[in-house]
């Protein structure tokens, strides 16, 4: 009986090993003493960037295949190319995947297709009132890394048998591809990043210079504090905790949430930007964006926006004396039930539209708005449209 049990265990282990296969894509370390810049070119990649504590740059890139045939694995691997080279003091790393990768990709094999069982999509009733959100709300949100398990994934899915009958999907018929790609870097290294169709999650506070061009890429950062940082982001998503210094360009970026901004220039269009706290010397130029500015720091000093066709939702600075001034034309101001309308003029000339507070205040909010909608709120803002 004992022997039989051992054989069964052995069979089980062998069977698991045959199904789950981990393939190394790239695994190498570089001494960072002679490298000043890491140049990353990413296409179709899911990667986490963590802090290296030994002054080396580590690449650890593996993919785990479960239930894949040998041929299917080979096809997937053939579609992934990776190159690294050192040019002067720069480490250039390029990787490309023919199939854009996510953290986990499930593939269901079914002869007659799949369907679902369960209720239709339901949504919570949305409120027309938005409450001011504290800065810490954004920190918690930006750290969120929920992953759907296979059990959750299959819960409402059913296989079809060709006669219209449904059956439970056997997890043996689900192929799983897990990407585990971690790059470890010193926090002060300079980064030059070009990314396309990718996911990048930074799990460290970056102090080095970051130059980034990203398209269709989901980005998550902790803090970025180099004053010369330069970002050009189109499409995709962007979340960050603290941004201090630098210039950021956002073109149609969704889910853009930042806990705090300080000494920052933002140039945006077609983007909704939600900021927890506006710090010192922040300037925003925008076209057709939507803003939610939840609070201002105690010493924000000077906040300026130049906007066209933008919608600005501004919570008054909490416990801070300030002066608000707005120039422009064709703009509607809302505060509770009060609406102030400044109509368009033929020459599109800017004139003073509104002031709040005393001009001598050291903290100034200046908004130049053409064809804008500006809403003010103390604790909440009500959307009345």
């Amino acid at each position, binding site marked *: 009986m004992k022997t039989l049990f051992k054989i069964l265990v052995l069979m089980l282990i062998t069977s698991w090993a045959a199904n789950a296969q981990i393939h190394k894509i790239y695994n190498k370390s570089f001494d960072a003493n002679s490298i000043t810049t890491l140049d990353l070119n990413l296409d179709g990649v899911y990667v986490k960037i963590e802090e290296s504590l030994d002054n080396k740059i580590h690449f650890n890139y593996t993919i785990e295949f479960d239930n894949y045939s040998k041929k299917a694995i080979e096809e997937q691997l053939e579609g992934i190319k990776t190159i690294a080279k050192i040019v002067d003091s720069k480490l250039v790393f390029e990787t490309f995947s023919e199939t854009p990768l996510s953290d986990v990709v499930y593939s269901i094999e079914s002869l007659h297709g799949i369907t*679902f069982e369960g209720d239709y999509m339901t949504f919570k009733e949305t409120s027309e009132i938005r409450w001011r959100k504290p800065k810490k709300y954004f920190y918690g949100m930006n750290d969120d890394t929920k992953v759907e398990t296979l059990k959750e994934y299959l819960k409402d899915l059913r296989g079809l048998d060709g006669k219209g009958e449904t059956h439970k999907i056997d997890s043996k018929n689900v192929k799983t591809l897990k990407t585990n790609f971690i790059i470890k870097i010193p926090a002060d290294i300079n980064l030059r990043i070009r990314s396309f169709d990718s996911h990048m999650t930074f799990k460290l506070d970056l102090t080095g210079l970051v130059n980034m061009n990203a398209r269709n890429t989901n980005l998550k950062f902790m803090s970025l504090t180099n004053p010369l940082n330069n970002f050009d982001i189109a499409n995709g998503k962007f979340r960050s905790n603290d941004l201090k210094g630098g210039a950021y360009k956002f073109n149609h970026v969704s889910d853009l*949430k930042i806990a705090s901004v300080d000494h920052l220039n933002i140039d945006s269009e077609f983007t909704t930007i939600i900021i927890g706290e506006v710090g010192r010397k922040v300037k925003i130029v925008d076209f057709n964006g939507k803003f939610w500015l939840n609070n201002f720091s105690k010493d924000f000093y000077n906040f300026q926006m130049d906007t066209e066709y933008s919608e600005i939702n501004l919570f008054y600075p909490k416990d801070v004396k300030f002066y608000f001034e707005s120039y422009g034309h064709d703009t509607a*101001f809302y505060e509770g039930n009060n609406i102030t309308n400044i109509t368009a003029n033929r020459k599109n000339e800017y004139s003073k539209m509104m002031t709040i507070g005393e001009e001598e205040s050291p903290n100034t909010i200046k908004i130049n708005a053409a064809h804008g909608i500006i809403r003010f709120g103390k604790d909440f803002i009500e959307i009345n449209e």
Partner: protein
Amino acid sequence: MKRDIRHIFKDEEDDLKPIPKNHRAEFLTKLRKPKSQKQNPLVWLGVAAALVIALTIGFNVFNSDALENNTTPIVAQVENIEAEYLASIEAEWQSFIALTEDEKLVKRFRKKLDELDMDYQEISKQFKNDSNNILVIEALVDNLQTRLQILKDIQKHIKILNQNNEHHENTF
């Protein structure tokens, strides 16, 4: 409880609301509707929006029978959805240019829509090579949804401003 799908977009910034349990199921249902059945693009807007928020996990659905044909049911369904979206986008565009006299604004939106169309052509190439990849289908629908949404949003914005017929200079 079912609700007006247009409300979904009013609440985009509040992503702490729970992800609907059946978002994917809804998505699949829409894909599996017969071609002759009328698709409502607004329903797709909601489905795609939920997916964009929810999916960190992609998946492919392999239908062994369908793969042998050039036009798989999924390709046909996506073509159908695309046609309906493009018709809605065109209708919204006509409505938009009729609403505004700002030529600069029209020009800027034309440029944005052209950029999105170029992106769409790129994603379509991926779709031709990998038509069972839900991530690619999502990207296609998201692109169409974006075009429709920005046109709807700017019209709503202009309509609010057009209600203004008084000139005030005010200090609270």
